[in-house]
């Protein structure tokens, strides 16, 4: 009897766990792993539980700092459609070998991207050449992919679904058939669309789930747009000055009078891509083997077990215009503190590295954007800039992550 009582108590405690505990970072924290005194701070997988959010309300309501969705969206949001998209997004059966879901590269607690590697892997571990972008506020991107090759989310979803190095579904029809055969999905599609799954409504459903991932009302928004003078501390306010002034960051990462998406929707050559394609391979690379254990490894050893890295020429691959070589889309900076590693290839592991890169004027090349030049920022200014970037995290991100934790993960069941 006593044992039963204790068991009941422990269950009650577990259920009472507040959602505010959600960590906006990998549950398997590797903070400080470079050092020998690293200690683990790992979360329990069974305790990774969440509460469903009203995603329709999130998509429909105004968010301080964001433009209204109506000027961007393809279709008015619908709760039943969002629900299908959410289910599809976490469904590992939606791939050629029933193993990969969208959420495996866009991991909710990792800023809806992947913090744990530079560039994600896809079907059977095949490598992708570009960093996974965050899906928070993705609806505001006028063009999609780092090379801006796609125009709408509803169309975009078919690229990863069919790419041989991503989810590798054999055809559109195979995905459609799979969902039509699944009684649960079939019912949901019929109820939401009045028809069975097809190429268009699958795209719409996944697009609508992504459209609902609006995350703003950050401390910056409350300070800049909401008039709360204490929402940013002195250092962050100084960082904003650097961002819009000496650092010229806002010349690409735009802030307008009523809202801020922190992007100009343009593509630029900052030199990151040139460096990647043209630099000489170093003789050795530094490899970390354990906390505080680093060794220099001969590049030949790495090559023996490594595939030849796929080249990446950026926007040029779409236009075939030599002037577009190594141009990439300006990403928005909302929630940027959650989305490491950075740049189109995940080259920089921290915002400090990004700031250092721009401070020295990127990488010189013939097609370098004229907006990229040495900034001559002091250490203090760089620190302030870093602090400012940390203030861009939306106040509702934890709710969206909690909702994602509550979403069902689709797996093969007998």
């Amino acid at each position, binding site marked *: 009897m006593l044992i039963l009582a204790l068991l009941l108590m422990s269950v009650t405690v577990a259920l009472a766990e507040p959602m505010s505990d959600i960590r906006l970072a*990998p*549950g*398997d924290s*590797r903070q400080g*792993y470079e050092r020998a*005194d*690293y*200690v*683990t*701070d*790992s*979360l*329990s*997988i*069974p*305790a*990774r539980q969440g509460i469903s959010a009203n995603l329709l309300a999130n998509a429909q309501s105004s968010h301080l700092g964001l433009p209204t969705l109506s000027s961007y969206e393809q279709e008015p949001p619908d709760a039943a459609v969002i629900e299908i998209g959410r289910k599809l997004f976490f469904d*590992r059966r939606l791939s050629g*070998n*029933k*193993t990969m879901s969208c959420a*495996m590269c866009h*991991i909710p607690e*990792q800023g809806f991207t*992947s*913090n*744990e*590697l*530079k*560039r*994600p*892997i896809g079907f*059977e*571990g095949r*490598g992708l050449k570009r960093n996974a972008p965050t899906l928070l506020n993705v609806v505001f991107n006028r063009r999609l992919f780092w090379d801006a090759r796609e125009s709408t989310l509803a169309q975009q979803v078919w690229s990863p679904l069919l790419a041989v190095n991503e989810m590798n579904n054999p055809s559109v029809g195979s995905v459609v058939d799979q969902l039509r055969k699944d009684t649960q999905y079939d019912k949901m599609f019929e109820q939401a669309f009045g028809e069975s799954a097809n190429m268009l409504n699958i795209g719409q459903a996944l697009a609508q789930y992504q459209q609902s991932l609006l995350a703003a009302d950050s401390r910056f928004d409350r300070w800049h747009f909401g008039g709360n003078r204490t929402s940013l501390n002195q250092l962050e306010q100084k960082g904003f000055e650097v961002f819009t002034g000496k650092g010229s960051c806002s010349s690409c990462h735009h802030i307008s009078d009523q809202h801020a998406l922190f992007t100009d929707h343009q593509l630029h050559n900052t030199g990151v891509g040139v460096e990647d394609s043209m630099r000489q391979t170093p003789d050795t*690379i*530094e*490899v*970390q*083997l*354990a*906390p505080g*254990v680093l*060794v220099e*490894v001969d590049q030949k*050893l*790495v*090559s*023996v*077990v*490594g*595939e030849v890295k796929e080249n990446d020429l950026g926007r040029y691959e779409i236009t075939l215009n030599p002037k577009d070589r190594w141009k990439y889309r300006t990403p928005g900076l909302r929630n940027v503190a959650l989305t490491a*590693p950075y740049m189109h290839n*995940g080259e920089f*592991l921290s915002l400090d590295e990004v700031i250092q890169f721009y401070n020295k004027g990127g990488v010189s090349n013939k097609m370098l954007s004229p907006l990229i030049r040495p900034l001559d920022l002091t250490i203090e200014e760089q620190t302030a800039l870093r602090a400012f970037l940390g203030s861009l995290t939306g106040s509702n991100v934890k709710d969206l992550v909690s909702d994602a934790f509550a979403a069902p*993960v689709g*797996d*093969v*069941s*007998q």
Partner: protein
Amino acid sequence: MSKLSSLLIKFVALSLIMVGAAAHADETCMSPYMAKIVGQEDFVYVWTLGEEGLGDEQDKLVTIDVNPISPNYGEVVNTLSVGGRNEAHHSGFSDDRRFLWAGGLDTNKIFIFDVHSDPAKPTLHKVIDDFVAKSGVVGPHTFYALAGRMMITGLSNNKDHGGRTAMVEYSNQGNYIVTHWHPTDEDLRGAEKSGKYADGYGYDVRALPRRNAMFTSSFTGWTNYMMDFGTMLADPEAMKRFGNTAVLWDLHTRKPKKVFDMPGAPLEIRCAWDPNHNYCFTTTALTSQIWLMYEDADGEWQAEAVADIGDPSKIPLPVDISITSDDKGLWVQTFMDGKTRYFDISDPFKPKQVYEKEIGAQVNMISQSWDGKRAYFTSSLLANWDKKAEQDEQFFKAYTWDGDKLNLEFTVDFKAKKLGSAHQMRFGAYGLYGLKRPYEAKNLVASGE
């Protein structure tokens, strides 16, 4: 009859273990709850990865005849394709040794082969494809027989596909029973965090039933084990995602008791045989050390690094290991230089390398016979970690060990035969199931005996 008596095959029942006749297998590295082959094995089953562009491109169980008296000695006598590239990896027999469970680290399918009806021609008995749906665990790795149960270690999970994972317990019939999560800082599950780490990672499992002890080690999650190896080495974030722990569990209650710090991805665990040898070895893949987990004079379990393997700064990458049945030797394969190294472990606290031999451009697994006179090697580590181009040799090599050196008896070239990438080996024998070798039965008839 002399030939039959030379089979030297016997069953070791649980009751024998209880009175102290400890027995594992690899033949020397498997579960003590299982019958073992102490004489000449008839077959080696090689769980083989399908390779794009090679043969039928799919995973298969390859059966090789390894009995020198067989007319098919040295030949592939059967292949059984299972469909798909599942990242075929490890396998293990059920406690009655009638079935071989083999896992796919990518698709998470578990293939259960019938190896007793005809040991020369295993058949596919059952496929478990809802392992993840049932357990939340990704990457079924080690299949370790307990009494009536199969303990399956995982490498990852279906939430972030990182390294936090669990052991998953199944019945011999293939029914899911329970998931045992590895201790994390948030939920140590009653275990003592003895050092700085409690990462929740998993890899291998072994048990010492007479000490009521079970041990697990830790590797890395789906993202890393599926990734191109060279790309991963050049990705500092990915290189942070390796296990640095081993865990002591209470075997009977399945509760974790103590988390040991063991930096650099400890992989295979091999426990000593002698009833008075209360210790197990493991090796760390990245930091290239031999570690000893041992019970001290106060009955407390400890872990200690006891030797380096090659030059750790060159990342030789120790992978599979195998202990000899007399507890005196430990074979250690180093993947990067393709070598096997034999350590004298007579003093378990002072392992000393006494022999090495290059097996091929790359080498991973070893299986040795109970008497230590035969050792078999295979080449593949993981589909995307194996060496590229001409260095991607894929083979099964059979050696004899004369106590001083390894002598190559035969090779099966898995590329030339278009089979795939050769991974884990398990032994089969007619005598385990009361069956006579067909060629011996024929001889008996022919000679009128």
